[in-house]
């Protein structure tokens, strides 16, 4: 009975009001997470030293602040893409990692690193472009395999994602094997994944790619909401299903490609965060998308904080932390989903 009464309370307010409240709450969470992530580190933040000590200031503004910002950007991106893919495929288990999008991006990025990490095409980093293409190819292949006629088979979707990841991982190993030693080492270090960044240069370059992707997904949130309810109904309500799909693919591949190229494969952020948002604020995709964006930023900031402090002097890959948290959530969802016979 409790579960039946909860939505009633949520739905007494129009979506606008609910969204405003949810975003206000989550923004507070984000601010708190940011302050905490800035404060905690190998050395606690010393505000007095920051004002007087030149070196402390450099460490803070060139290392810790950019890293926290980077974690926020990557977390927000992955969580939003997860929410969008779940709505598009009507599958609560969809996210960049489970659909093989991250794997495809990783393969693309390692090809680019093997060719030379600093390479640029028309002034844009080749790694970004290659990862975008890899992610795009992966999402197309997985989607083509899972779609039969008017329906996307949820089981086939996830299996195709698993195969895509495995093949892509094998591809990365091959490239590492054949690349010369220093580049192989570069690829190895990159596949472990880290949000380590010096200064804001890289962040600005990422944003050139990410902001258009974000804008497209936000603009598609209404169509995604209708698609999440039912594809045929969405079509009858005036949604151009094919065009929406293409736009969401393109935006998701772009976002995932860039985040993978920078930070390696960071799994399950796109799974945990949207589901947490749903539990808190309901199913409306127009609400889940922006809320996942904000909460995703806070989540990865905190996960990265744990990753860089838990070992004391050393550092864990942040992907290990998110996988440790995300794996159980995936299994729990899988178990819950059987009730709805979506698999």
């Amino acid at each position, binding site marked *: 009975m409790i*579960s*039946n*009464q909860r*939505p*009633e309370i*949520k*739905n007494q307010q*129009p*979506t*606008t009001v609910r*969204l405003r409240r949810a975003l206000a709450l989550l923004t507070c969470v984000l601010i708190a997470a940011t302050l905490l992530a800035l404060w905690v580190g190998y050395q606690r933040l010393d505000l007095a030293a920051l004002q007087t000590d030149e070196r402390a200031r450099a460490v803070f503004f060139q290392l810790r602040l950019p890293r926290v910002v980077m974690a926020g950007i990557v977390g927000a991106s992955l969580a939003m893409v997860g929410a969008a893919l779940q709505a598009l495929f*009507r*599958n*609560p288990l969809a996210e960049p990692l489970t659909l093989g999008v991250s794997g495809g991006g990783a393969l693309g990025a390692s090809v680019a690193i093997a060719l030379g990490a600093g390479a640029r095409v028309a002034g844009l980093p080749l790694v970004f472009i290659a990862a975008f293409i890899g992610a795009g190819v992966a999402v197309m292949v997985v989607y083509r395999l899972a779609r039969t*006629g008017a329906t996307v088979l*949820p089981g086939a979707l996830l299996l195709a994602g698993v195969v895509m990841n495995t093949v892509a991982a094998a591809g990365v190993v091959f490239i590492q094997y054949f690349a010369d030693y220093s580049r192989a080492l570069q690829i190895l270090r990159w596949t472990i994944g880290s949000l380590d960044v010096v200064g804001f240069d890289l962040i600005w370059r990422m944003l050139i790619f990410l902001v258009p992707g974000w804008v497209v997904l936000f*603009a598609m949130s*209404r169509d995604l*909401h*209708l698609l*999440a*309810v*039912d594809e*045929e*109904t*969405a*079509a*009858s*309500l*005036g*949604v*151009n299903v094919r065009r929406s799909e293409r736009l969401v693919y393109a935006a998701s591949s772009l976002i995932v490609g860039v985040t993978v190229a920078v930070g390696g494969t960071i799994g399950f952020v796109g799974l945990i965060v949207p589901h947490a948002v*749903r539990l808190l604020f*309901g*199913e*409306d995709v*127009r609400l889940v998308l922006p809320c996942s964006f904000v909460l995703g930023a806070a989540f990865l900031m905190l996960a990265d904080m744990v990753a860089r402090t838990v070992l004391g002097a050393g550092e864990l890959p942040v992907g290990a932390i998110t996988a440790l948290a995300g794996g159980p959530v995936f299994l729990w969802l899988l178990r819950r*989903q059987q009730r*709805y016979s*979506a698999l």
Partner: protein
Amino acid sequence: MKGEGDIVGSKQSDALIEARSLRYSYARGAPEVVSGASLSVGRGRLSALIGANGSGKSTLIRLLGGILKPSGGEVSFDGVPLASVEPRARARRIAYVPQTISSVFPFTALEVVLTGRSPYTTRFRFEGERDLEVARAALDAVDALHLAARPVTELSGGEHQLVALARALAQEPECLLLDEPSAALDLKHRAGLVRHLRRLRDERGMTALVVTHDLLLLDPAFDQVFAMRCGSITASGAPSEVLRDEVLAETYGDEHVRARQAFGRTFVWSEL
């Protein structure tokens, strides 16, 4: 719900939807599911589309609703080619209810009904108080207001269809296209559905086309019946004209079908 001006202003022809020799196949080279179907659905009338399984009824109704584009022929709605109507403008006039809706996410029934308001809102504006009112009234109109807060993943097949119908009503359309809406409904709700449709026709001048296997409900409740066989319309007219032994035998390819009139209605069955 439409103003007087709309009715006077629009061409007062008898047909709201007219289809001329429609053709459609789901893939290039695949057999045509609809092959040369023509029909005209009367304005403000309650029409039924009957036919054997696989005769192309669901495809035809999707073509009439503009959800599929015909590979040949043309649909015109209110005298205008449907293909030239912007999809969201179309959704304000035609509402389509699919056979099944498969919700994976536990949206509440009210949330699903509110999606019917999306043709009236802009991309970045959510539904307002009035949209909520319309959605609640639509649920009330199908006696399903008590389901408003329930997750649709927990509803029964029949309740699902009531919610889908309410969503269509929330679109405030002139025309309802329903694909087997009574399939999952029990005796009471089947009759209730037809009563709803008749009330909508009488009170709002609603046009409705219903795909159905429920031949017992047709006479005298419906105004018009179309019989479909192998992708084209083979018979049409008043229920009493279409519900005849020889017509039904041809439509269903079954010479055991019998239709008899009694108590002012037509009973249809197939001899065992």
